């Protein structure tokens, strides 16, 4: 087992987001540059203060670095996968702790809506001759396993989409703010049965930037630091030729064993959750794997408003990927920071001091943010 690292002292000091929507007149370089400009302003930093750059999804980090004119001594590139947001933040923290850079800007740009990206239909995939395609179908299959094994129902699952839509209604930036009721959820068309339209995330354009630096530097800046107190990663790639039979439970358990001990923050002290929600069932998997819900009981456990604002663990207060914006985990990390800073207006978690990001994927990650240093 990896040894828990004591006393991390790294913080997020700036976050920036563009508007979410459809912007066919620009591309992901412009979205990333706009987000970076916003994050620098948020942090009260200039480009000269940035010596590390992490780029994700934007096609060329080299072209992006030319556009934004940074003088860098640390560069890392991550492809267009949702799992890469948590991984990238972890790489940035590690780079700062290792002294490879002092202040790192992480920049993500996504123009998937304008480019009509469909997340499925790759013709050269192993199972394409039988029609099996898309990450959505893999999640549909995993949800079916959960239904078969534990008796979880679609009506229980509805609570995820309904909760996040309710939160999005409180977020002026969210794409989908129209109220969603249970009847409409069930009446929506299947995409891949057992999942229906509202179990699927949005596809929209947007950009996100996050600036990370040492705690020492963070304390000298304008905004309250959001300290990264704990982080963990666990891959289940060896078995990923097929959808995960255990819904990533063992992988997430490994993350849980590390992140609470490392951060010194107990699960019960977490005030809010940001859970990667490309498809609604993954929220159930994350809650079970991280030990919030008992294994197999997440469908029941989330009922009664547990994930809603005012509930025990308000989750995806921005509306998540299902209703706010599909920024592949990046905007969820921004929301964690904004909650820690108490910048969330109507959707603010009262007395918010610790927020946990969880991504249940073939490479599961978690990051625990807190208002106080270690």
């Amino acid at each position, binding site marked *: 087992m990896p040894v828990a690292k004591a006393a991390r002292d790294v913080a997020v000091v700036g976050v920036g987001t563009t508007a979410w929507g459809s912007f066919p007149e620009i591309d992901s370089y412009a979205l990333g540059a706009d987000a970076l400009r916003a994050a620098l302003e948020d942090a009260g930093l200039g480009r000269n203060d940035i010596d590390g750059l992490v780029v994700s999804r934007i096609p060329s980090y080299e072209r992006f670095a030319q556009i934004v004119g940074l003088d860098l001594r640390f560069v890392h590139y991550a492809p267009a996968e949702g799992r890469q947001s948590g991984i990238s933040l972890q790489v940035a923290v590690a780079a700062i702790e290792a002294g490879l850079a002092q202040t790192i800007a992480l920049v993500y740009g996504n123009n998937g809506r304008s480019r009509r990206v*469909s997340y*499925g*239909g790759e*013709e*050269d995939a*192993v*199972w*394409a*001759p*039988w*029609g*099996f*395609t*898309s990450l959505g*179908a893999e999640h*549909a*299959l995993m949800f*079916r*396993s959960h239904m*078969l094994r534990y008796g979880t129902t679609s009506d229980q699952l509805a609570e995820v989409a309904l909760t996040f839509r309710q939160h999005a209604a409180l977020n002026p930036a969210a794409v989908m703010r129209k109220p969603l009721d249970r009847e409409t959820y069930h009446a929506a*068309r*299947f*995409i*891949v*049965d*057992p999942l229906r339209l509202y179990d699927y995330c949005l596809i929209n354009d947007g950009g996100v930037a996050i600036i990370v630096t040492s705690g020492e530097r963070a304390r000298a800046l304008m905004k309250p630091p959001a300290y990264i107190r704990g982080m963990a990663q666990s891959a289940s790639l*060896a078995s990923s*030729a*097929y959808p995960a039979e255990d819904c990533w439970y063992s992988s997430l358990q490994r993350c849980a064993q590390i992140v609470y001990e490392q951060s010194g923050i107990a699960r019960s002290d977490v005030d809010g959750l940001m859970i990667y929600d490309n498809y609604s069932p993954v929220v159930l998997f994350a809650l079970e794997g991280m030990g919030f819900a008992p294994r197999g009981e997440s469908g029941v456990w989330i009922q009664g408003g547990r994930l809603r604002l005012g509930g025990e663990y308000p989750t995806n207060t921005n509306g998540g990927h299902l209703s706010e914006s599909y920024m592949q985990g990046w905007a969820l990390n921004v929301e964690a920071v904004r909650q820690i800073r108490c910048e969330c207006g109507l959707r603010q978690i009262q007395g918010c001091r610790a927020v946990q990001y969880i991504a249940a994927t073939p490479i599961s990650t978690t990051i625990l943010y807190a208002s106080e240093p270690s």
Partner: protein
Amino acid sequence: MSEIGTFPHPVVDPYSTPFWEATRARRLSVQQCASCGALRFPPGPACPHCFLPDAVWIDLSGRGTVRNWVIFHHNYFRRHNVQVPYAVALVELDEGIKLFTNLRGVEPDAIAAGLRVQVVFEQFDDRFTLPCFAPCAEP
């Protein structure tokens, strides 16, 4: 339900060539590690259990059990005339290998976990024969 030939054709790589040659001869064949005996699929250059490279190809019984399934109501293959809805099942063969496949002789609504199935070979085009599965009476 979709008819055979509407989905993209298989893409053959150096490791999967024997698999597709076997299906043309109406045999379901997978790699077996020459060192530790573990079966592996999809085909690849090393054994995930013992990491040694050598393998032989062995024929499977063709009998298995439906473990899971989904029903596509959306056609992701934009260049193909796929009729929706169609079902894809995950079948675990008695030897432990799992395949995504299409079921014949069973309506999507009647698919259930635990259903016993037997391989049936269907002509995909003049190059490929595709293994699909149909319910069988045998326990």
